[in-house]
């Protein structure tokens, strides 16, 4: 079955958890014991309706404070598709979680409170979706019940959002605006009778109609070697296969390939998965590849088609989203993890924090937790990269703090 991954973003009290709970309830994905638990807790909290946000808030602290702290993954399915929602918190201080959630998703739902309209955090949510090149964005204008289901309120929000979009450089992104009331289940799975002026799809209808092939990246094939498989058994005595996941485009038996960084060339002799062999494997496949020649290939190396060799560089200019408490400042060193390859990187310059309002960058020379900025990095060894726009997997990296080992930031190569 097709799997569609969705990230959700909204500010505090926009009703994001309620919307997700509603999607689960309306698709009959909540089981009776979960509905009973929601009834029990709703009643205990003195509510006379079912608080669907209880279906998602997982940690004790979240239930106490009624907020979402960490990315939660929620699963539901219809006869047509399986859905995975990365429910990400809207607090400004938790932006790193939003980037995390959106990074694995094909589509996003941005929530807006109809009473508040487009606010500063909406800019940020939209900006992150742009930065990550999320192709399909649903803007759900929630709490329409609290603005008398007003078409004018909705249209004003759409207009404000369109002004924001005009500043974005990612023109292929598709925006869909849907007026909803998550609390009362209006335009979530079922059409609202209170908003006859809206003739578009409900959120669920829209999701159901999205085609997965439209999300496939049509770029150049990149194959990062995860490990070398050498069984050393009698049966497979001289076997040497390269295990990894293909990204960007497909690879075929007979393709002439170049091994990076050594630049040696060979031909793909076999593509196999378990005990089966294939002529061709598309992007997204985890396979094992054998080459015609006995050359030196190890973890961190990359195989590409010989006429599609990416750019070699020791200097990277990237947009970096900072996720660590320790501020990013020039002069510090990090491990830069690019696919399966790790190199040392020194921060050469922080060239300003990007205004998530798509305005001009300021001249900040450091990035704090949750800041997004332009950074120039010098690398200890050259790597072979694409820009993130050209090739998602080969155009991104993470920065790992060498002292704490934490993932401190994520970068998008320009």
């Amino acid at each position, binding site marked *: 079955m097709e799997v569609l991954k969705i990230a959700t973003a909204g500010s505090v009290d926009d009703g994001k958890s309620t919307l997700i709970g509603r999607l689960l309830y309306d698709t009959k994905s909540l089981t009776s014991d979960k509905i009973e638990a929601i009834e029990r*807790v709703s009643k205990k909290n003195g509510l006379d309706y079912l608080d669907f946000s209880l279906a998602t808030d997982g*940690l004790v602290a979240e239930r106490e404070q009624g907020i979402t702290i960490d990315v939660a993954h929620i699963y539901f399915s219809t006869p047509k598709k399986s859905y995975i929602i990365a429910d990400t918190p809207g607090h400004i201080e938790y932006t790193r979680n939003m980037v995390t959630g959106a990074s694995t998703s094909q589509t996003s739902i941005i929530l807006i409170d109809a009473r508040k309209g487009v606010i500063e955090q909406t800019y940020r949510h939209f900006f992150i979706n742009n930065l990550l090149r999320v192709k399909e964005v649903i803007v759900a204008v929630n709490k329409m019940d609290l603005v008398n289901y007003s078409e004018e309120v909705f249209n004003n929000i759409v207009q404000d959002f369109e002004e924001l979009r005009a500043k974005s450089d990612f023109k292929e992104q598709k925006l869909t605006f849907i007026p909803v009331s998550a609390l009362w289940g209006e335009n979530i799975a079922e059409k609202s009778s209170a908003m006859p002026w809206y003739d578009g799809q409900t959120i669920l209808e829209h999701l159901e109609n999205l085609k997965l092939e439209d999300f496939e990246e049509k770029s150049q094939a990149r194959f990062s070697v995860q490990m070398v498989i050498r069984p050393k058994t009698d049966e497979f005595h001289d076997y040497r296969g390269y295990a990894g996941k293909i990204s960007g485009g497909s690879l075929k038996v007979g393709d002439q390939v170049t091994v990076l960084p050594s630049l040696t060339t060979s031909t793909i002799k076999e593509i196999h998965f378990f005990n089966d062999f294939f002529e061709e494997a598309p992007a997204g496949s985890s396979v094992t590849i054998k080459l015609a020649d006995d050359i030196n290939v190890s973890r961190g190396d990359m195989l590409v088609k010989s006429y599609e060799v990416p750019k070699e560089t020791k200097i990277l200019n990237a947009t970096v989203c900072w996720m660590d408490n320790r501020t990013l400042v020039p002069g510090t060193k990090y491990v830069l993890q690019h696919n399966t390859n790790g190199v040392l990187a020194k921060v050469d310059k922080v060239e300003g924090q990007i205004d998530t309002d798509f305005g001009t960058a300021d001249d900040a020379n450091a990035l704090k937790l949750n800041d997004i900025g332009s950074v120039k990095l010098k690398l200890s060894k050259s790597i072979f990269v694409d820009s993130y726009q050209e090739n998602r997997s080969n155009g991104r990296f993470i920065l790992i703090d060498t002292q704490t080992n934490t993932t401190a930031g994520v970068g998008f190569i320009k």
Partner: protein
Amino acid sequence: MSSILNQNTLESEAIYIFREVVAQFENPVLLFSGGKDSITLVRLAQKAFYPARIPFPLMHIDTGHNFPETIEFRDRLVKDLGLDLIVRKVQDDIDNGISIEEKGKYSSRNSLQTNTLLNAIDEFKFDACIGGARRDEEKARAKERIFSIRNDFGEWDEKNQRPEVFDMLNGRIDIGQNVRVFPISNWTELDVWNYIDSEKIEIPSIYFAHDREIFERDGLIWTASEYVYKEDHETTETKRVRFRTVGDITCTAAVASNADTVQKIIQEIRDSAISERGARIDDKRSEAAMETRKQQGYF
């Protein structure tokens, strides 16, 4: 030779994770309970490293309160695939005074597994423990990373987890820390069953409908066994049941079922109104039962 590979997204993701574990860690282990999720992991590991053998051992934390069918199955699987199996017993820790047996009506060794697991990790210096937990099972598990860091005490710091962006897995840890790895994080119960079906994976017989001596308590079906505490007024009867999860016999309730094939089980789950862990007595202890256990190092 087939022409174009058409791989299941979830399978591709799981295999990628397995390979990252072996590439990034020195001493991984697969935590094997004998349940369908860990059996699925074994199949995925086989595929990930083929034609090499699975490059890590399996470890079973044995509460001593097992379904005999599960143990028979475990031993056969290990023998057939030529795997290494480590067994560490909760009973040994009780005998040595490290763990204290719970008493009374709801007593179970489920929580005692944590001690035994942490001691075994220490004993073998495992730096990565691969497990079959899935995010759809329970709401604390929904917050898990694929690489989830544990400190020296096995504790999970749920509010301070590393961001996991795209498919990039950062397995760098300090000495003393270890990582729990969940390759089938994004699978649902139904995904696992569909995979068992399409791959024709063998699973222990207790997953299929069978006649069993049971008694009912708190609306759940308990197995009549020497290990399960039963009050005098609780009477047993024989019923057609199956198990949806396989854990310690004292905390795994059965469901009434006639599903005796994988296909019928899939249909039953589709129609089912009760969640998988709805029959887990250990989760019923409180709203935050799983989160509390996880913080303490439970798997």
